[in-house]
């Protein structure tokens, strides 16, 4: 009897908990003073703090928290403290939507930095647009994200741009005549890069193969690619997948140069893929060896706080936050319409280069090509499309 009572009590409590959440969700969103109450400006952050892309989410969060600390030390924004409220979306679109609604409706944030991954950003963007909450992603590279409306900004380049850059790099720098592509059919990011590469590559695409999210055995596809002996193999996906693909590709006897996008950027690439990942080239937003003073200062501050080197995700999200904070500061307002207009007119030198926005609210900037060698990422060259 007691057992049953406890079980009932627990389930009632659980249901009540959920009801509480949805109760808040029906509240009014997008009030003009949103986030400015009580002397603090609340900013939401969404990213995969756990899950297969967690190293991106955690780096991004660190970048933003560094900016939060610096801003508050310097007296906050117009005398108000900044408070970053983080939500974990595990890299899943549904969790990003739930988390975003929580930030907007129950935490009453003034704006959202993120989501970190493209798929999540794509699903949250229409919601931010509907509630009129500015959303600025530092890392969501899928082209459709900012098409949701004038509330949505991005401080990185887009997938088509990356695919185009790598196609050009393959011909100009690697002198490649033939290429093969292996991409994830169920992922916006992977598909976006693959399609752009395919349409921009001036040589011959000898084979295009796909796989699904969660696959770990790529031998069937790679065996099919191997006899074509392509000069380059383009692998537009995240580190946890491409590291396995590169390992299997070398086992199958593929000798092509591996090319990829910013998804390669993680120290985990080497711990999973071992020697097979050395000698690959990928496009990225930033390199720690860039001589500019913004980069040097950022690396110094980041190291002082976290005792580790920042990756591109940390730098990009730091930049995204900076654009937002500067715009709030400049306009002395957290009103979405005012902040939006200030961001549209933004022009400033940040960690990942000079940033201003085009008419689609996408950052206009150059790419960095990084080479993997000796178990490390090294700066190769700056590359313009």
């Amino acid at each position, binding site marked *: 009897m007691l057992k049953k009572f406890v079980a009932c009590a627990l389930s009632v409590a659980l249901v009540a908990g959920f009801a509480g959440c949805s109760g808040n969700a029906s509240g009014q969103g997008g009030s003009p003073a949103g986030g400015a109450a009580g002397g603090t400006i609340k900013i939401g952050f969404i990213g995969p703090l*756990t899950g297969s892309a967690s190293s991106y989410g955690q780096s991004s969060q660190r970048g933003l928290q560094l900016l939060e600390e610096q801003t508050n030390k310097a007296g906050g924004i117009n005398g108000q403290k900044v408070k970053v409220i983080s939500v974990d979306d*595990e890299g899943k679109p549904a969790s990003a939507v739930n988390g975003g609604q929580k930030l907007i409706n129950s935490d009453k944030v003034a704006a959202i930095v993120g989501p970190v991954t493209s798929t999540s950003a794509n699903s949250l963007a229409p919601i931010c647009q509907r509630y009129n909450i500015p959303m600025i992603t530092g890392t969501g590279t899928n082209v459709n994200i900012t098409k949701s409306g004038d509330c949505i900004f991005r401080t990185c380049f887009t997938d088509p741009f990356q695919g185009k850059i790598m196609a050009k790099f393959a011909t100009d720098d690697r002198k490649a005549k033939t290429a093969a592509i292996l991409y994830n059919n169920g992922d916006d990011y992977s598909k976006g890069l693959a399609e752009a590469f395919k349409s921009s590559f001036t040589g011959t695409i000898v084979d295009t*193969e796909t796989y699904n999210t*969660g696959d*770990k055995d790529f031998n069937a596809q790679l*065996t099919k690619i191997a006899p074509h002996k392509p000069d380059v193999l383009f692998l537009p996906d995240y580190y946890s997948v491409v590291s396995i693909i590169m390992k299997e590709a070398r086992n199958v006897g593929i000798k092509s140069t591996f090319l990829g996008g910013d998804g390669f950027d993680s120290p985990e690439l080497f711990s*999973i893929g071992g020697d097979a990942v050395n000698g690959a080239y990928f496009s990225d937003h930033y390199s720690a060896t860039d001589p500019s003073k913004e980069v040097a200062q950022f690396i110094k501050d980041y190291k002082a706080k976290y005792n580790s080197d920042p990756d591109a995700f940390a730098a990009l999200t730091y930049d995204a936050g900076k654009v937002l904070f500067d715009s709030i500061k400049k306009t002395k307002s957290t009103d979405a319409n005012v902040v939006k207009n200030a961001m549209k007119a933004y022009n400033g030198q940040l960690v990942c280069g000079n940033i201003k926005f085009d008419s689609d609210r996408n950052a206009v900037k150059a790419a960095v090509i990084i080479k993997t060698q000796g178990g490390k990422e090294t700066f190769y060259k700056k590359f313009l499309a």
Partner: protein
Amino acid sequence: MTFVEFLQQLINGLSLGSVYALIALGYTMVYGIIGLINFAHCDIYMVGAYIGFFAATSLHLPFIPTLILAMAGAGIVGVLVERIAYRPLRKASNISLLITAMGVSLLLENGFNCIFGGDPRSYPHDILKQTNIELGPVHTDSLHLIILATSLVLMVLLQIIIYRTKIGKAMRATSADKDAAALMGINVNATISATFAIGSALAGAAGVLVGILYNSIDPYMGIQPGIKAFTAAVFGGIGLIPGAFLGGLILGVIETFVTAWYSPLAGAIGFIILIIILIIKPSGLLGKKVSEKV
């Protein structure tokens, strides 16, 4: 497709299939004895991979002790799951049990995600040297052969345990009629615990082997192979040990050839073929039609 390519893809398919077979053995064994589709099986596989990971990285154990520790650990977790979640529901309907199994599955996945984080982790590179093996124009690697051999050996071992030992006899008796078995002096609880221990230990072994093969483990690693292995078990004739082995290999081969033919349809067409085979032979490849007792 040239003949060499065909042979190579066949080898790829058998390699992939041996992973499915290894996991399918545990599914089918538990089903055969207590008639439960243990959805948590694929998460025990994940738990085994994690135990192996910590044995290899924190305790610096070599391969064989790592494997044994993972099998023992997974076996204990399997027995605990049965004791805590399934035994209290033994008299309840099958559906309740099935939903409980899904609950345990989600609990293990998200619990591990919460405790250890979702970052993929990798086994030490030197734990089991992976060497390429050239067989004329085609090639495979040592690890795939080890996995194939392990599933084959375990299949034979399971058959021996079930048909040649006392505990196996008790398992078969329990499977036929729990109450009658209890009346004959068989300790039904102990027998079911033993079934879970063996099935989960197999999953643990699979977890370590696959963890080393792909060199990446995460809390959700069991979901996809779990679905495939379950399909393989049904396809081979659920409850039949050789069926699980055969089903796993065939599923791997079908999937590989469809992928090689047109990769975007790999998942869909592979399963359509399975559905067609199951329409023709509903009890699976090796299954015999058994009339329900009323």
